[in-house]
């Protein structure tokens, strides 16, 4: 396998200090409750609106104690698809923010802080870096209130980065317009005071120059992309129970899905959430629930019923570090085995795992089509990193005209007759040649039928008849449709040096690619290498593994080095 990658982890920066003047790595950090996310988002939005690409990450990592949080932004006029472990400009609201990021700061990095803050009076900025002591709180008070001190810091950052302050205005307008024009103006003023203070009091050569372009970008995260994909795909019913890091899907849909005749239901627990969605799907709605590992555990109870009743349902798992409550705000991809094998009995299922924010949108659309076309449950698998990453895209990335909706074998009233048995009874589990049965929505005349989690016959009624059992099991294997699905899935990204495998079940046969590669390395955010196990089982060949399970996502340069090591290890014995 070649060392460079085309997607996901884009290894453009491999050397520390390889500082392209137009590439800026910026962060704001402080304690939870300091408004870190909101401030970071404003800066990211300003960059995006100025026609720059942005890739953000949120850092909850703590080497000391809980409470620290940071919002990091990587920006360039070129496309950026990862974070790097290098910081150029840091707004530090606490001493700890500097300590936490010391490894990422380098010669010439700029640290913006408020030396008037009692906890920041003894800040020591290393000699090789530039410390800018700015009275953020006092300047914010001059603009109308201490609460705007982070915005003052954004003004300082604009001066440092040589990024026109006007670019901030529209982002501030977007963020604060609901609070009234006066608040918007105060914030714009706060930013200006920060910028002017920096221009008047410091005389450093920072070496940054943030060009702007005329490009229009949109800025969104993986959870929002999943929510938007659901609406685009015709999902009208969402039920869920709040859980980090899947809650953003629910919050995105709340209010928005209503505009399209849909509804978000906050359930009393995940057991209810999946059963509500199941009910809506039985009524004919495109329905979805989203959760994280602990919720998937509960939903597993009903998963078999969804499958055996052949109900189309999209179940989204935004993975976080487990097991049990684990580390709710940390990254891990440890649910794969659960998703592939969870639930008693044997159940075929789709497991579709988008690997980028834009894929979160398109794979969600596809998940609904797969679910209805094959009348099967689909696990749509994302993770914390995707959920909290905000990334810029040209709006046409989400071209709604490209959205296709395939509802499968929905039976119209005039077609009901052809699916009745000799006694005139509708057969919801009729064993068709392709394994997919007719589906009559409630309200369809003559289509009344039941179904059950018990093994059932074509009528959906309980049976223990051995021949019928075998017939229904064979039917649910969906072999024909699965093979067909694979054919169109196989076109996806297989012929490149970096293989991203969003289709995990059913998954493409990678034997040829693995045979052709000198070394195959499977990169996963878990300890065991669950996908590596699956691949080895598939191709009967050993693969190299790069695993990370400390709760923090891979950074591009770190990954590059790991891959280099893995390749070297392989090459030694030869």
């Amino acid at each position, binding site marked *: 396998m070649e060392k460079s990658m085309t997607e996901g982890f884009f290894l453009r920066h491999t050397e520390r200090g390889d500082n392209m003047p137009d590439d800026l790595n910026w962060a704001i950090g402080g304690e939870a409750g300091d408004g870190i996310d909101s401030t970071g988002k404003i800066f990211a939005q300003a960059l995006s*609106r100025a026609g720059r690409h942005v890739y953000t990450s949120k850092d909850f990592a703590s080497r000391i104690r809980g409470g620290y949080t940071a919002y990091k932004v990587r920006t360039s006029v070129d496309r950026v698809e990862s974070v790097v472990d290098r910081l150029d400009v840091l707004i530090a609201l606490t001493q700890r923010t500097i300590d936490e990021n010391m490894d990422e700061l380098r010669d010439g990095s700029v640290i913006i802080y408020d030396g008037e803050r009692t906890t920041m009076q003894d800040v020591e900025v290393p000699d090789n870096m530039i410390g800018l002591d700015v009275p953020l709180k006092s300047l914010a008070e001059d603009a109308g209130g201490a609460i705007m001190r982070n915005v003052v810091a954004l003004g300082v950052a604009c001066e440092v980065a040589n990024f026109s302050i006007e670019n901030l205005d529209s982002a501030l307008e977007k963020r604060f317009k609901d609070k009234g024009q006066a608040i918007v103006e105060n914030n714009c003023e706060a930013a200006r005071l920060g910028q002017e203070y920096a221009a008047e009091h410091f005389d450093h050569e920072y070496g940054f120059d943030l060009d702007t372009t005329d490009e*229009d*970008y*949109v*800025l*969104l995260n993986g959870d*929002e992309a999943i929510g*938007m994909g659901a*609406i*685009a*795909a*015709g999902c*009208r*019913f969402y*039920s869920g129970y709040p859980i980090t890091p899947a809650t953003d899907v629910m919050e995105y849909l709340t209010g928005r899905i209503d505009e*399209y*005749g*849909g*509804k978000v*239901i906050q*359930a*009393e627990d995940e*057991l*209810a*959430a999946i*059963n*509500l*969605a*199941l*009910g*809506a*799907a*039985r*009524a*004919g*709605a*495109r*329905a979805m629930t989203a959760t994280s590992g602990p919720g998937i555990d509960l939903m597993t*109870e*009903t998963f078999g*019923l969804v499958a055996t009743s052949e109900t189309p349902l999209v179940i989204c798992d935004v993975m976080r570090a487990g097991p049990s409550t684990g580390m709710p705000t940390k990254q891990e991809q440890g649910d794969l085995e659960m998703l592939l094998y969870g639930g008693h009995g044997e159940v075929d299922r789709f497991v579709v795992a988008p690997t980028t924010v834009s894929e979160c949108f398109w794979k969600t659309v596809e998940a609904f089509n797969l679910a209805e076309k094959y009348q099967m449950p689909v696990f749509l698998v994302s993770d914390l990193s995707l959920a909290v990453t905000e990334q810029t895209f040209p*709006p046409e990335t*989400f071209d*709604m005209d490209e*959205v*296709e*909706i395939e509802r499968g074998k929905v039976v119209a009233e005039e077609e009901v007759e052809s699916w009745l048995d000799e006694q005139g009874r509708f057969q919801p589990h009729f064993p068709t040649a392709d394994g997919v049965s007719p589906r009559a*929505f*409630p*309200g*369809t005349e003559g*289509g*009344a*039928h*039941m*179904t*059950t*989690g018990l093994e059932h016959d074509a009528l959906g*009624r*309980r049976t223990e008849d051995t021949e019928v059992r075998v017939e229904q099991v064979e039917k649910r294997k969906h072999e024909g449709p699965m093979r067909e699905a694979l054919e169109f899935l196989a076109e996806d990204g297989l012929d490149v040096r970096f293989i991203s495998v969003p289709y995990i079940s059913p998954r493409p046969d990678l034997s040829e690619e693995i045979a052709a590669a000198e070394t195959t390395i499977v990169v996963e955010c878990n300890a065991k290498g669950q996908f590596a196990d699956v691949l080895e089982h598939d191709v009967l060949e050993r693969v190299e593994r790069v695993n990370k399970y400390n709760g923090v996502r891979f950074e591009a340069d770190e990954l590059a080095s790991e891959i280099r090591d893995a390749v070297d290890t392989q090459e030694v014995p030869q």
Partner: protein
Amino acid sequence: MSSDIRFTDFKSDKQPTWCPGCGDFGTMNGMMKALAETGNDPDCTFIVAGIGCSGKIGTYMHSYALHGVHGRALPVGIGVKLANPDLEVMVAGGDGDGYSIGAGHFVHAVRRNVDMSYVVMDNRIYGLTKGQASPTSREDFETSTSPEGTTMPPVNPLALALASGATFIAQTFSSDSQRHTEVVKEAIEHDGFGLVNVYSPCVTFNDVDTYDYFRDTIVDLGETDHDPTDKAAAREKIVDGETEYTGIIYQDENSTPWEQREGLDGNMADIPDGAPEDAMDLVREFY
């Protein structure tokens, strides 16, 4: 809906496998009659059942139906109703399904007050698993898993409903076919969540809460001057704990179903062939 629907239209050709004499026969017949007499059509009716003897009901009735997993029938019913409010949704369960494994959902289904009915076949015993204590079993009731009695007070489902903000609370006796049917009809016609707890005796495993016991002790509130809209009077009857009351115990006449409060009236199954026309607005929001 056609006007010539008869209750037998709600009957499937499958013969029930309940024990002869089981209260569930009468409970189900009343449900079918009530559905037909309130002008419902099997093709526009959705029955949800959980697990237990009561769970078999979807098989013996003719309508759209789902026989789900244990304890989760209510969320399924709510999902069906919200996705298509034109459907008549009736959920059937037992005391184990509704008040033990599904107790959490019961409280929240009552709170949400979606326009549907919930008929619970309460026989105060686990019948399908052959005779263990249920949440409504008496404290001194001896079973294979409670040889010294349950040593816990039974759940009072009506009190639980009242405390959860119920808008319709009723109780019936399966062998009083006429009253049972009348009350289930009222539950169907009620604008909101209609709870009917049915004394539905188990002739095989419960020799305490028998037909004779209920016949001798029941007080039908329909034959008294009880005013179901008087919440204080209803509370008194519900927490009484001594008398087996039947009839409509409480009804909030001003109840508005949740889906109406939320403005849901369309069929969510109806969607366009592609993304909604103005879907690019969703993308532009992210500028």
